[in-house]
């Protein structure tokens, strides 16, 4: 892992460019106008992407670049350092690549907005934090990126802060992320307690080499659970997913970049990065798998009943992330990573498509007021179609390949509940994407405004993404089907898959083919049913009360509010009014009042009558006498 100086400055350039950019656009955004900011932002991102690509192609991995010491921890210390290895480079390529495209798209989408400079400053800051997250070599460094992206998502969700709802959505996102970060912090403490260091390569080396006492295993197990909680917080899994649907309050490019392509995948990246640690505790992996599967199924059921186009895509993201965690849980990180990459492409495409639809219909987001747009917005329609088909799992698109590999692993695992959940979710995914597709583009137009196609900056990005999501499948075409599994081999140096069972090659090919046919049939079935159900969609549906819980997202938000928020607020009031006000201040003011009451009482003795004074002298004297005599006082 030698360190060439020129590589060091390239790496620094790649990461620091967005940071410098963000400061520039914030301060100079107003003065120099939109043109300057848009060119600057996109070029800074492109430059950063070029640097990452240069390192990706030329450097001998894994490459460790050290800058300066950050935190002294007594025995060991944490320093700002980058670790370029397959895992981090793959994700950084996606981040900067998709990021640049979305920046280009956003210049069109945000045209005319007052906070134009501010928006791009936050977006660049986000890319900087995301790169810190993916590239940093130590856990605290990763945590810096982790919370940095949390901050940027807070700033971007509440970007149009004049509307109270957006501000509280942003606040909710940051707080729920912080709950996850609590778990991450706890994990770091446990890891430091066992390994005495927080630099990821060191930890993973001791994990592979080391044998652990019972006590150490307790701490590492706690660390794994902490990491799972952190990942769940950031990637919106079951307990902590509530913030993602509300995060749609932010501008669409934000939803595309942060809440679909990059930030939410941080959880998956973390689990893959710390996979050797997880392998010590297979029960934790199982928990991840079940969490993923249940989240996928749960989110899919809600997505079906959403009418807001962005909410549907939000729940679909949660569901797809569920798939990735399912794959990680089953010990197939390569499948998860592949799905992560393909998902980044087609989900970004779907979000940007939805964004262009909304842009065209002047910020109309309710699907019931859309329909028949395929003639008015042809490019968006055709790109969206590729996206829908990809996510539904129609061969030969990338979505089919990556999802099929996950389903293959699930099938191989022979855990029937997981298999059932996976396949029904696949069907539901196809159904609700079909529903979205048909409600927006087919039937007659139910909206108010006159729809028009988006400008070239937006549509060109759509086309590129459409091509990417169509062809991404070749990245990891399975051996069985004659592919070279380039991603698999590329990642094999860092993560290893858990082989569940040895199969003879002939049987393996036959079963994987049947599986592929079954999954594509499920996808097509979902689409056709959706087609026939919504062909001549009139406007309202699911009116019967039976669907009430589904439409209201199982009242989870209200539940959290009632259990957690209301009780905390009441407890706070109790602490303030009773503990502080009544008890502690009561004691204080009480003793002061006691002193002044006794003093007023004693003052009454001063009657001014001299005889009484003499009497008191006698009484005092007698007490003295008695005390002395009995020898007590």
């Amino acid at each position, binding site marked *: 892992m030698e360190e060439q100086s020129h590589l060091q400055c390239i790496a620094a350039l790649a990461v620091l460019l967005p940071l410098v950019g963000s400061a520039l656009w914030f301060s100079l955004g107003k003065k120099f106008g939109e043109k300057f900011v848009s060119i600057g932002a996109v070029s800074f991102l492109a430059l950063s992407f070029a640097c990452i690509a240069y390192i990706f192609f030329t450097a001998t991995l894994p490459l460790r670049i050290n800058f300066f010491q950050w935190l002294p921890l*007594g025995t060991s210390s944490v320093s700002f350092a980058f670790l370029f290895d397959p895992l981090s480079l793959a994700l950084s390529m996606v981040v900067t690549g998709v990021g640049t495209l979305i920046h280009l798209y956003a210049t069109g989408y945000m045209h005319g907005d007052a906070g134009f400079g501010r928006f791009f400053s936050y977006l660049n800051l986000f890319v900087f934090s995301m790169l810190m997250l993916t590239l940093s070599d130590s856990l605290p460094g990763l945590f810096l990126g982790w919370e940095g992206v949390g901050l940027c998502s807070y700033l971007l969700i509440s970007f149009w802060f*004049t509307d109270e709802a957006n501000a509280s959505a942003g606040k909710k996102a940051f707080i729920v992320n912080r709950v996850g970060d609590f778990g991450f912090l*706890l994990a770091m403490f446990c890891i430091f307690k066992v390994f005495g260091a927080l630099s990821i390569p060191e930890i993973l080396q001791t994990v592979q080499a080391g044998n652990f006492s019972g006590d150490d295993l307790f701490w590492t197990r706690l660390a794994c659970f902490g990491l799972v909680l952190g990942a769940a917080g950031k990637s919106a899994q079951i307990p902590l997913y509530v913030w993602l649907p509300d995060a749609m309050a932010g501008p669409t490019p934000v939803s595309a970049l942060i809440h679909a392509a990059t930030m939410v995948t941080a959880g998956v990246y973390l689990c893959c990065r710390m996979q050797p640690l997880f392998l010590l505790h297979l029960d934790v992996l199982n928990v991840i798998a079940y969490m993923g599967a249940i989240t996928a199924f749960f989110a899919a059921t809600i997505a079906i009943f959403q009418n807001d186009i962005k909410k549907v895509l939000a729940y679909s993201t949660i569901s797809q992330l569920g798939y990735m965690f399912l794959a990680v849980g089953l010990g197939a990180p390569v499948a998860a990573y592949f799905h992560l990459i393909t998902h980044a492409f087609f989900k970004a495409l779907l979000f940007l498509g939805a964004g262009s639809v909304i842009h065209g219909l002047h910020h109309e987001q309710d699907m019931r007021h859309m329909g028949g747009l395929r003639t008015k917005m042809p490019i968006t329609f055709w790109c969206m179609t590729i996206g829908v088909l990809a996510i539904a799992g129609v061969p030969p698109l990338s979505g089919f390949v990556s999802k099929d590999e996950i389903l293959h692993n699930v099938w191989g695992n022979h855990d029937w509940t997981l298999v059932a959940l996976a396949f029904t979710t696949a069907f539901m995914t196809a159904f609700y994407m079909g529903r979205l597709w048909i409600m927006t583009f087919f039937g007659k137009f139910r909206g108010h405004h006159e729809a028009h196609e988006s400008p070239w900056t937006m549509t060109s990005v759509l086309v590129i993404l459409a091509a990417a999501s169509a062809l991404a499948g070749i990245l990891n075409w399975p051996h069985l089907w004659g592919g070279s599994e380039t991603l698999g081999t590329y990642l094999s140096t860092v993560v290893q898959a858990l082989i569940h069972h040895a199969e003879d090659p002939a049987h393996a090919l036959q079963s994987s083919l049947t599986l592929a046919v079954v999954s594509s049939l499920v996808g097509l079935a979902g689409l056709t049913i959706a087609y026939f159900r919504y062909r001549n969609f009139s406007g309202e549906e699911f009116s019967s009360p039976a669907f009430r819980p589904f439409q209201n997202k199982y009242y989870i938000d209200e539940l959290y509010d009632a259990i957690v928020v209301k009780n905390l607020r009441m407890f706070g009031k109790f602490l303030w009014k009773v503990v502080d006000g009544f008890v502690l201040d009561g004691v204080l003011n009480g003793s002061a009042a006691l002193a002044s009451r006794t003093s007023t009482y004693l003052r009454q003795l001063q009657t001014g009558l001299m005889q009484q004074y003499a009497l008191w002298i006698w009484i005092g004297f007698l007490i003295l006498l008695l005390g002395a005599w009995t020898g007590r006082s």
Partner: protein
Amino acid sequence: MLNSNYLLVLFAFPFLATLIVSMVRGRGQAVTWVSIALALGYFIVVLLGLTVTELRYEATWFLPLGLKYGLYLDSYAYYLILLSSFLTLLALFYSRGVVEKKITAYHALFHALQATVVACLLCDDLVFFYVFWEAMLIPMYFIIGVWGGQRRLYATMKFFLYTFAGSLFMLLGLIAVYIYYYKATGVWTASFQTLMEYFQTNPMPVTVQSWIFLTFVLSFAIKVPLFPFHTWLPDAHVEAPTAGSVILAGILLKMGTYGLMRFAVPLFPEAAQAFAGPLCFLSVVGIILGALVAWQQTDIKKLIAYSSVSHLGFVTLGIFMMTETGWNGAYLQMINHGISTGALFLLVGFLYDQRHTRDISAYGGLAKILPMFTLILVVMTLSSVALPGTNGFVGEFLILLGSFQSNTASWIWVVLASVGVILGVIYMLHMIQKLCYGKPSKPEVETMTDLTWKEWVLYSPLVALVFFMGIYPIWFLGPIQEKTAGIFATIAPFLAK
């Protein structure tokens, strides 16, 4: 130049400044500029000693019963003096246009406050530490009393008597140590260094040590403030003038934790060990209570006051868990809290001067009207919410990480304390949302003016410090680590393995 009479200059300069400022006649402006110049001069004098590690000044004045004016400067005391001179400079610069009545007395009192704080930090003699520890209350008493808000009489009385009562117990504890040493060695001295060396080799029996330790902790806990003794802080902060709040939060609260780190734990390690559990419990309760109650406040200053209770709960947790990293983190967090809370109070003062109300619902939508103000407010909130990359995170992370490894008290406290990280976000973002986002609740808010160059001079150093110490804390933690290592070398034999 950095020899013992530098210490004398460090000690005497603020006292001189107080005299000079009180002597200045003439219109208010002259006094203000003279006092700010003196504060700046002192800040530069302190900066000269940046490279100092340990300085000692032997006293020439003989006092009966072995008391003498020994001065002792180490990195623990030095950085607090630096913070105090820096914040006093900012506070005085801030209160240029704000204060109208009795300006000379106002500036003289601030210099007197600084003089007593610096004297207290430099004193090597336990008795004179106590003398200046109490003397600090007098200037603060008058600052809150004369220039305070409506309920200032009750607030300042409560502030003074509460701290005075606590420290009287410490007086007896202090004398008990002083006499225990005399009875053991026949030498009258209260010099902290000699006591430390003596107690290192032959420590006091644990029973005696415990009650003396408790008297020390009681006095310092009231000042910190630790959980059950904190009810004076919100009143004092709400009624104090802005500059007073900045100094009160920035420096006076730190004297409590400084006392714990410098005197209470090193002198009585076994007792600290024995009481670590309950004291950690109190710190954790302070963290959670401070955060939750802050969330309910409608008065911004009270909200920040309760947030200080929560932040200093972390510091005391770091101290009582007794690990080296924990102590480094605790000391750093003391300085961070001084910067972030001082800045927050200045910001609230900025709002108060324009709208004359501290009620949080009187504002709203400031982000559109005062964008620069919101930027500074958000940066300071991030520092106090311990976002990585700001100084708050470095302090809190070191405290929690260090304390997790300790075996003096159970690690459950650290887990509960980490919950405080979540609660911290809740009330801070609640404040930001109420102040900055949404629509302005009243038309007057529209007419507020944003930061001018005067405010920038005030806030830019603070913002720079927040990020500089967040990214590169080593320049600051280096000397602190040596000092902590020194202390832990002495108390290590008494700590549980």
